[in-house]
């Protein structure tokens, strides 16, 4: 008999960290599978390198810190972080990008702060932004879609050489993402409609994911489906995704109506870049998002606002990484000021007034 003095409750729900993490992994699988399918062997190699190095770094840090490595690795949080980092990398990036990204994400972004639950910034976004700023060439080399069984797809050996040898094949395989294309075209004064045509924009392909982009972020549909799965399993609440997507859509609508020649439509925004991935999988990260539901609404809206601002007027074509990091830094402030109202007290914490007529 356990004589250790414990307090009630003596029963609890079945919820475990591991089950939450595994649900997230399942939700990410469709988009990952599509990404690997349309980008081929190098994408698979990069994905594996990133995830495995994330797990390795986590284990090494835990051992250094003297904490039980096995048990913590088994809870799946490093797996999810590594997986997310992999999804945000350019699909044919060299292997060391994946390793450095995992290092920054796991070691600098999580373990250095004290491990699970202690970090201020989203580890995956920290990794991506650090890589983008440090290695702009590798991080902005976008590959044409080359599905696995098509003629353009690299073979196993070529793929190996691409990922581990760092040798991209001859010209003709790279190009800009839609967001990047639109930004450069608009800055050169061309109209939006022409740019969309010359950039081969098709809403259907964007939604499905058959475009250039990061390994796992192209398919808005599959990511939204995964997000819906997370909502159904109650792993995330709808507050952050809805507020983030709605803010972007609202701002895009306003500006499109104001000047349709310069500002893309809401659907364009929602289906391009990593907005869907961020809305459901990244901004909803427990550790770095606010505690209260009202706070989460503010957080999501702030992310959406910054994403739109950077995409429209900023220097980078995609602003999701920066938006999430900036809002992460505001999470403690949001948590401090936006709290649930305690029963029996007003918003300032003072006891409620007694109703009239009572002593």
């Amino acid at each position, binding site marked *: 008999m356990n004589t*250790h*003095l*414990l*307090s009630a409750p003596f029963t609890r729900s079945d919820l475990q960290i591991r089950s939450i993490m595994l649900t997230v992994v399942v939700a990410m699988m469709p988009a990952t599978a599509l990404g690997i399918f349309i980008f081929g062997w190098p994408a698979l190699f990069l994905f594996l390198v990133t995830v495995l190095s994330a797990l390795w770094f986590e284990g090494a*840090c*835990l051992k250094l*810190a003297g*904490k*039980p*490595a096995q*048990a*913590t690795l088994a*809870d799946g949080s490093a797996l999810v972080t590594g997986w997310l980092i992999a999804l945000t990398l350019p699909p044919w990036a060299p292997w060391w990008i994946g390793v450095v990204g995992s290092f920054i994400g796991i070691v600098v972004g999580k*373990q250095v702060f*004290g*491990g*699970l639950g202690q970090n201020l910034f989203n580890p995956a976004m920290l990794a991506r932004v650090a890589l983008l700023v440090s290695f702009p060439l590798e991080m902005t080399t976008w590959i044409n879609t080359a599905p696995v069984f098509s003629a353009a797809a690299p073979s196993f050996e070529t793929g190996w050489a691409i990922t581990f040898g760092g040798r991209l094949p001859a010209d003709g395989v790279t190009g800009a993402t839609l967001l990047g294309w639109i930004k450069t075209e608009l800055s050169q004064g061309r109209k939006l409609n022409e740019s969309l045509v010359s950039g081969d924009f098709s809403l259907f392909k964007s939604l499905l994911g058959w475009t250039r982009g990061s390994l796992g972020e192209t398919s808005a549909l599959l990511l939204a489906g995964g997000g819906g799965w997370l909502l159904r399993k109650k792993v995330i609440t709808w507050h952050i995704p809805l507020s983030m997507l709605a803010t972007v859509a609202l701002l895009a609508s306003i500006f499109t109506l104001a000047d349709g020649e310069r500002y893309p439509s809401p659907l364009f925004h929602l289906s391009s870049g990593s907005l869907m991935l961020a809305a459901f999988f990244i901004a909803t990260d427990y550790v770095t998002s606010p505690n209260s539901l009202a706070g989460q609404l503010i957080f999501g809206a702030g992310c959406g606002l910054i994403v739109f601002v950077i995409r429209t007027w900023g220097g980078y074509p995609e602003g999701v990484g920066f938006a999430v990091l900036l809002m992460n830094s505001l999470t403690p402030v949001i948590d401090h000021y936006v709290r649930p109202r305690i029963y029996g007290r007003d918003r300032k914490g003072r006891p409620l007034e007694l109703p009239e007529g009572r002593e």
Partner: protein
Amino acid sequence: MYILFAAISLAALGLGLGFLLGAASRYLKVEDNPLIDEIERMMPGSQCGQCNFPGCRPAAEALVAGEAPPTLCPPGGKALAEQLANKLSIELDLSGINDQVPLVARVDEADCIGCARCIKLCPTDALVGAPKMIHVVVADACIACAKCVEVCPTECLRMHPVKTTLRSWRWPKPETALAGA
């Protein structure tokens, strides 16, 4: 030329400000450190001497001078240690410190000869009795400084741990050896 002017002006500035600082340190000097008064007010004030200083004020002075740790006061316990650490902005890891078991003095009536030496010594008047009569400890007022125990000629005074009752029982801190980071 310019370098010469720059050097002269900066040197003059330095000398001028240094002179002002020196004047301030002489004419605006604070006589006594008010921190010592504040710290002394936080102490129990019973001058029991368990901290190995001759009273609460010398202990406060040692604290401010950094010669004694904030955990120096047994009657104040962990609560006082935390308050002192906060006041002096000292990092303190209190998790390893356990409050010593609270003690209380008790007179063994069989051996008490009524000499009243303990009564004269008790800093909080927790000992009551008349000469040649058996003395008794008022448990509420006893601060467990043990001065009475030292002076009793028949060793009838002893320190006993205070028994935990249902009223004084408290939940222990959960021992969560967190599995993993």
